[in-house]
């Protein structure tokens, strides 16, 4: 018996080793280093002096970081909630379709999701191109006959990036909602039908309560995901002049670390992002668990 215990420990050690090494070196160690770096004035590469909470104080008092936090929250609001609700509507429609029509519709909504972000950027940059973009046929009448460079117009920037993001990622949400809807037994609807429940009553009393857990899941996944926005904002501001006014948090980290060589300050911004997302994840976990226990 003792021998087999040792064999088990040995097997466990060998099987866990790759994971433990990778996890330790690439995850635990950088996380600890990040916190440490955030209390120094170090450049990106190289040593620095301990400066206590100076970096955090700078983040709070300078203009750019609060702007980046606000822009990030603004983007999350513009993308997460609309994409969740739109996905539910689309899923309800797709779920009614049968056979190949359903497969084709689902594929049409889902295909953008598997594209690289840079491809999504290229497609939409072309759609809205100020000179030859097809969207200008719709924009020009609204803009007094003038073409409009939407991604160079500051008030339109975040909403437009949100639209592109919703187009890109909606398929993921639709997929989760469709599977949620399929899990609702048709017998419930048949019974409701016999009782003469209207469509609206069926939705309100059956579909909505039963799909609510999926809604919470999708919404919280989107909230957490969109907080990490960088790629689209970076790509659509490429070559632009007023990057600061549309800056988001990850972009701020990128700028401080890789363009201005301020490793310490960038690390402190990373810690703030880290904490924000960790808090949201705990809330998500609690919400989902509360539902599971009921």
């Amino acid at each position: 018996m003792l021998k087999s215990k040792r064999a088990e420990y040995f097997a466990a050690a060998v099987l866990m080793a790759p994971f433990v090494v990778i996890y330790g070196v690439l995850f635990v160690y950088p996380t600890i280093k990040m916190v440490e770096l955030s209390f120094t004035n170090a450049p990106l590469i190289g040593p620095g002096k301990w400066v206590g909470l100076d970096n955090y104080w700078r983040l709070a008092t300078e203009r750019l970081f609060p702007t980046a936090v606000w822009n990030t929250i603004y983007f999350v609001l513009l993308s997460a909630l609309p994409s969740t609700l739109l996905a539910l509507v689309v899923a309800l429609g797709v779920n009614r379709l049968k056979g190949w029509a359903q497969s084709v519709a689902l594929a049409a909504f889902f295909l953008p999701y598997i594209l690289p972000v840079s491809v999504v950027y290229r497609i939409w940059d072309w759609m809205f191109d100020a000179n030859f973009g097809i969207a200008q046929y719709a924009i020009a009448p609204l803009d007094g006959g003038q073409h409009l460079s939407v991604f160079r117009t500051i008030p339109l920037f975040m909403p437009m990036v949100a639209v592109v993001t919703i187009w890109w990622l909606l398929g993921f949400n639709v997929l989760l909602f469709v599977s949620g809807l399929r899990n609702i037994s048709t017998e419930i609807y048949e019974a409701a039908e016999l009782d003469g429940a209207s469509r609206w009553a069926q939705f309100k009393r059956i579909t909505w309560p039963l799909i609510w857990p999926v809604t919470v899941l999708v919404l919280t996944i989107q909230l957490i995901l969109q907080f990490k926005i960088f790629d689209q904002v970076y790509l659509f501001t490429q070559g632009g002049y007023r990057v600061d006014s549309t800056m988001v948090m990850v972009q701020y980290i990128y700028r401080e670390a890789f363009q201005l060589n301020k490793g310490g300050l960038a690390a402190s911004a990373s810690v703030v992002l880290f904490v924000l997302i960790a808090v949201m994840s705990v809330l998500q976990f609690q919400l989902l668990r509360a539902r599971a226990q009921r």
Partner: protein
Amino acid sequence: MTDTALVSDAPPPAARPLVRLRQLDLFGAVVTLATLAGAVVWAFPLYWGLVTTFKPETEIVQPGVHLWPQNFTFENYAHVLMQTKIGLWYVNSLVTSGAVTVIVVVMAAAAGYAISQLEFPGRRVFWAMILASFMVPIPALIVNHFVLMSQFGWINTLQGVVAPQLIAPVTVIIYKQFFDSVPKDFREAAVMDGANDFQLLFRIYLPMNWGITTALAIITFIGAWNLFLWPFLAVSSEEKLNVAVGITQVHDAFGVQYGRDLAVAMLAALPVAIVYLIFQRRVTQAIMLSAGIKG
């Protein structure tokens, strides 16, 4: 859900059936049409981008909307294939995404098996850490990943692109859950026959969950192929770029040439689109699993 609650806001049963049947069909038809129209709208930007690549540049900048090229051409593709390093970027993407996929799957299957089937000190601690790391935003680690990779001398190398992508707690969690549900009888029978844990993993547990392995491998590959932020930071020379980042660099190379910009983008999207169309069911399954829905 009580019957009275449902009936309360419906008209009395006797008068309805005929009228309601017609209303139903009309409503259903409208919803179906709206859904199909929505699908067309959703697919249009992709179609429009694709069809533009088959037009000569002079036709692209002409006013008017032509849903099909007047002069169909592959000139844009020929040009980007000859004049950009996209062939090299393809190789880089294949190598890095392939490496990420193989390492993540092997590592996660091994760890998932150990945590699911073996008793060893620290098992609970590891499991708690894996669950907790769900909530860690990888983009917050870019600064220290860069510092670490430069200490390794791995900046601007393919292994430097691969390494930070190997943190995959979700894959371990999914494997653990699936290994948990393998019936104990199989294990006991194999142990009686003198099988050790490595044989158990590779002869029983992995083959029994082959579908999951395929699904996880595909989704890991697509994720690695599409990743933008980290390869964008870790690589500075054109020779080491992956496709997803590389295609944003051509713009500068030949100014604004809509057809070519889009052609190179379509080439970048092609492999993932093909993988998705072939393995649709597996991709769907993997997405459900990683969202926490067992499918």
